[in-house]
């Protein structure tokens, strides 16, 4: 039994088509971001002489209205999206999980306070609250990350508290209490490891949402500021040229769609691979 269950983890990874496809897409994006740190096929400097060049061997997707190479813009934009995703999800994950675990361990008015506060923040749509936060802090890359991160906090707080409450009701938690462990130790040793897979899956999905939110904020001019390339701002710049150069909008749009699609698939795949209830059936 032991050999089959340890071997089947990798087996399950390979069996899950969404995990494979999502993983490959995500890996591809990560590679693009990493490569763009030291090499891009063209340049992202403005040069009016080369504007609106058609796709060629030098410029695979052509150039935009400022003469910048579109592929290079997209690749550099990946850096931006991934940074936003990682940092914003980490903010949400750490703060939200901590709050959720606290709510679940303390119960009573602590739980009530944390949960009502997250209900309150849920009342505002994600983009709207992000716009509000950037309006207060001022537009910019860092502030958009903070805004998206703050939006993520109640999502994780709620999920953590719900799944942690289910673990607290388990017999092994009662057994742990009977062996003299305090709430903090039980939370770290019993509750957290048992909800980790749920959190990982949710983090992947929030990552996709964060990329989308960053694109939206940049599109509105509240996110990443020029000259740093961003998919959202590329969309915005392409908007005015919609009928002259429609492909200018298609490239960043496709990049956003691909990233979100890949991360969502990866999330679904991870759920198949990590969910103990599904894995126990196999």
């Amino acid at each position, binding site marked *: 039994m032991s050999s089959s269950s340890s071997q089947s983890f990798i087996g399950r990874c390979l069996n899950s088509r969404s995990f494979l496809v999502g993983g490959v897409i995500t890996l591809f994006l990560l590679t693009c971001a990493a490569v763009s740190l030291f090499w891009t096929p063209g340049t992202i400097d403005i040069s009016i002489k080369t504007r609106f060049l058609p796709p060629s061997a030098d410029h695979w997707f052509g150039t935009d209205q400022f003469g910048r190479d579109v592929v290079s813009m997209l690749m550099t934009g990946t850096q931006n999206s991934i940074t936003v995703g990682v940092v914003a999800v980490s903010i949400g994950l750490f703060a939200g999980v901590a709050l959720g675990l606290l709510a679940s361990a303390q119960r009573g008015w602590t739980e009530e306070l944390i949960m009502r506060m997250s209900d309150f923040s849920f009342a505002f749509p994600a983009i709207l609250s992000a716009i509000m936060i950037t309006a207060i802090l001022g537009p910019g890359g860092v502030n958009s990350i903070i805004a998206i991160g703050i939006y993520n906090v109640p999502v994780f707080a709620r999920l953590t508290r719900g799944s942690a409450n289910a673990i607290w009701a388990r017999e*092994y938690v*009662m*057994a742990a209490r009977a*062996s003299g462990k305090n709430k903090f130790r039980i939370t770290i040793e019993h509750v957290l490891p048992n909800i980790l897979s749920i959190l990982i899956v949710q983090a992947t999905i929030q990552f996709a949402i964060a990329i989308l939110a960053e694109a939206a904020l940049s599109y509105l001019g509240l996110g990443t500021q020029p000259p740093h390339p961003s998919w959202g701002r590329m969309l915005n710049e392409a908007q005015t040229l919609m009928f002259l150069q429609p492909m200018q909008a298609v490239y960043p749009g496709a990049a956003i769609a691909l990233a979100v699609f890949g991360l969502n698939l990866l999330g679904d795949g991870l759920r198949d691979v990590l969910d103990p209830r599904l894995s126990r059936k196999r």
Partner: protein
Amino acid sequence: MTALALMGLLPENASTTGSVNLDGENLLQKSEAEMCRVRGNKMAMIFQEPMTSLNPVHTVGRQIMEPLRLHKGLSKSSAMQEAIRLLDRVGIPNPAERVSNYPHQLSGGQRQRVMIALALSCSPDVLIADEPTTALDVTIQDQILELIQTLVQEEGMSLVLISHDLGVIAENTDNVIVMYGGTVVESGKTDHIFDQLTHPYTQGLFAAMPKVGMGRGKRLTTIPGTVPDLINLPSGCTFTDRCPLASDICAGNIPPVNQMEGSHLVTCHHLQQAVSARSKGLYE
């Protein structure tokens, strides 16, 4: 519930009155932090459900090591040695290898043995076993009880055994408390009670036991009615609704505690009738 109250593990909205004395200290007056030092150290508990009482994400060895490191401050390696010794003690074959198994790799009986090892880890003074064999099949039940019994004698612990199984109680205990609807209805030395069943509920429990040679097709004796709603317990004797001896006085008045021989106590309004009904059988 009573067991959880003893450990101070009731849900936070519950209130406990009276006192729980261990080594001359009232546990109810202790703070949560102080109780954490008592639980698992001086008092330990074996649960009803071995299948779900172990954390699926940790190895059994790690789970046995935890209280050792917590209460005794053992180092990782000496806690590991101790965990292996304990697994061996509770009769798990090949303990050095089993120690790195996850709970799902063990059978129900083995898991209950692990739970016992866990409870024993800090050699507690009091061991509470809450229906430790309910989830196990009969042969394993016997092994587990025998194991608990030997360990209790060898380690000099007190055992609080909670069970519905009268055979288990007769074999494993010195004193019995019969509880119904959250109240004590009869208590005393095990031998006394088994000799002189008095309270109508205790008599009913014994009557409901299947008897060898009863003949096929005969129905088992039951106590009529169902357990009262624990939220709205009857104001007088909790057994009133189901008791064949019940009269008007039972419904509204808390029954008196009658002393029988020695320490044998019976809580009933109709003691004389109950005593004389012994021979006839109250539930025929």
